[in-house]
């Protein structure tokens, strides 16, 4: 890797005119893309605001950017906003951590004992294909309308897929790399710790990127059905009492939170693969 860097830096010392032109063109293109992206956002917000102002759509039903901003300001002042975001974030992170931990653990067990893997295979496939929202009402009955239900619902959304993906990634490790560990006098534990797990760190991270989104989906479904707080609760409660400002605001904040969580994991992925 350091070799590549050296090569690049030695080339950048004597840039030809053609190279300069190429780089300039690239910069211009990137800038143009940013401008168009910005125009779409501003245009959408402006169109929405103006439509409610001149009465094309009813801001009572459709809310409006200014009403959303006002709601955000109000709820920031009385502290409710951070309370709801905090609850949703907490539930998401707990579910996310548990999904990864349990998923990894079960995948290791299945890799370790092929008979267990074979026995459980049909059950995993059924559980993975089952729409998990169908289970949420059952969880409410079993666990009560509380945070426990929400976290269990969120875990159920991502867990089975994670197990199946990780297990098949573990099994895809090159047979000769495993043989190598045995020729060096190692045992199955060494194969796991020296080859299978380190070889699968990239796939574990990309799985985590999927899981953070799925955990959020699961938490919102859970909050729809069984919450007294959180962004999902705000959305469902807001729609029931016709406070569409709350609903739209929650959706906007949710998209920011989702993007933020994804970006954090992308950052770790980049740092690891460097």
């Amino acid at each position: 890797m350091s070799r590549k860097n050296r090569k690049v830096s030695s080339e950048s010392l004597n840039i030809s005119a053609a190279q300069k032109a190429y780089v300039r063109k690239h910069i211009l293109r990137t800038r143009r893309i940013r401008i168009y992206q910005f125009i779409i956002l501003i245009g959408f917000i402006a169109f929405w605001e103006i439509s409610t102002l001149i009465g094309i759509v009813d801001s009572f039903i459709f809310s409006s950017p200014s009403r959303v901003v006002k709601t955000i300001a109000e709820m920031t002042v009385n502290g409710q906003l951070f309370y709801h975001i905090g609850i949703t974030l907490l539930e998401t992170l707990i579910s996310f951590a548990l999904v990864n931990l349990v998923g990894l653990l079960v995948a290791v067990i299945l890799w370790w004992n092929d008979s267990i893997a074979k026995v459980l295979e049909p059950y995993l496939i059924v559980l993975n294909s089952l729409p998990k929202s169908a289970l949420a009402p059952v969880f409410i009955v079993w666990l009560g309308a509380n945070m426990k239900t929400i976290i269990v619902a969120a875990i159920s959304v991502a867990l089975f897929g994670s197990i199946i993906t990780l297990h098949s990634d573990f099994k895809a490790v090159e047979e000769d790399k495993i043989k190598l560990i045995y020729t060096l006098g190692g045992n199955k534990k060494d194969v796991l710790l020296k080859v299978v797990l380190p070889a699968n760190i990239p796939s574990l991270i990309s799985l985590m990127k999927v899981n953070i989104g799925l955990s959020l989906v699961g938490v919102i479904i859970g909050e729809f059905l069984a919450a007294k707080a959180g962004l999902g609760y705000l959305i469902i409660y807001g729609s029931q009492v016709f406070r569409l400002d709350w609903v739209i605001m929650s959706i906007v904040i949710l998209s920011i939170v989702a993007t933020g969580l994804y970006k954090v994991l992308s950052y770790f992925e980049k740092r690891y693969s460097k």
Partner: protein
Amino acid sequence: MSELLRIDHISYTYHNLEGETPALMDVSFHVNDGEFLGIVGPSGCGKSTLLSLIAGLLNPSSGSIYINGKDLKSSGKNIGYMLQKDHLLDWRSTLKNVTLGMEIQHKLSGNSYVQINELLNTYGLITFKQSYPSELSGGMRQRAALIRTLLLEPDILLLDEPFSALDYQTRLEVADDIWGIIRKEKKTAILITHDISEAISMSDRVIVLSHRPGTVKRVFDISLSVADRTPFLARSAPEFKDYFNLIWKELNHNEQEK
């Protein structure tokens, strides 16, 4: 030279649902201490199976393997095994790769680094200690793999077509390299290859295996009249082509038989 390894009437059969495949049938030979033994045979004659048996990764269906007269498992002797590819782990530096075996066998201590650095230095890898495998050339990777094996101080080295993944020119260089290292460290080695020239150029003795199920067809003692023999110089010995023709005939004879 005293006898180090004895393969005594070994057979091995693979089983799967389609049926059983005998890979080796009644194979017997011995290897002397400090000897370089070459084994050639047509592809699919059970060569790799033979090495896996000697390495103790598989148990023979029948027959026994003795080291210094003791059974393989109870001999407590170390067998080093070099696979076809170097299999350096991408996420480990050269240093961490060569110490992998010691790490697994819990032999790594502060003192080991003197020996590790010495080997890395002798075989031209010291400046690449912190580099990752992707930054090493094919020859360097193969040397790193050999050092990884040598650090476990094996009594016998098994080489399973260790050069087959390299291009021809690198292959000749690495063969010289690896052969030199093995001679210098005074190791006993068994080389498996389907390349007749490679077997003659490196070995003191060459065993020809028959087509599957593999069995010992003939044994050739290789004596070449070159001073300061290296695998590369051995290729220019006057006897070289005679051995080549003999072994070639033996292998083709096998083919016709089947």
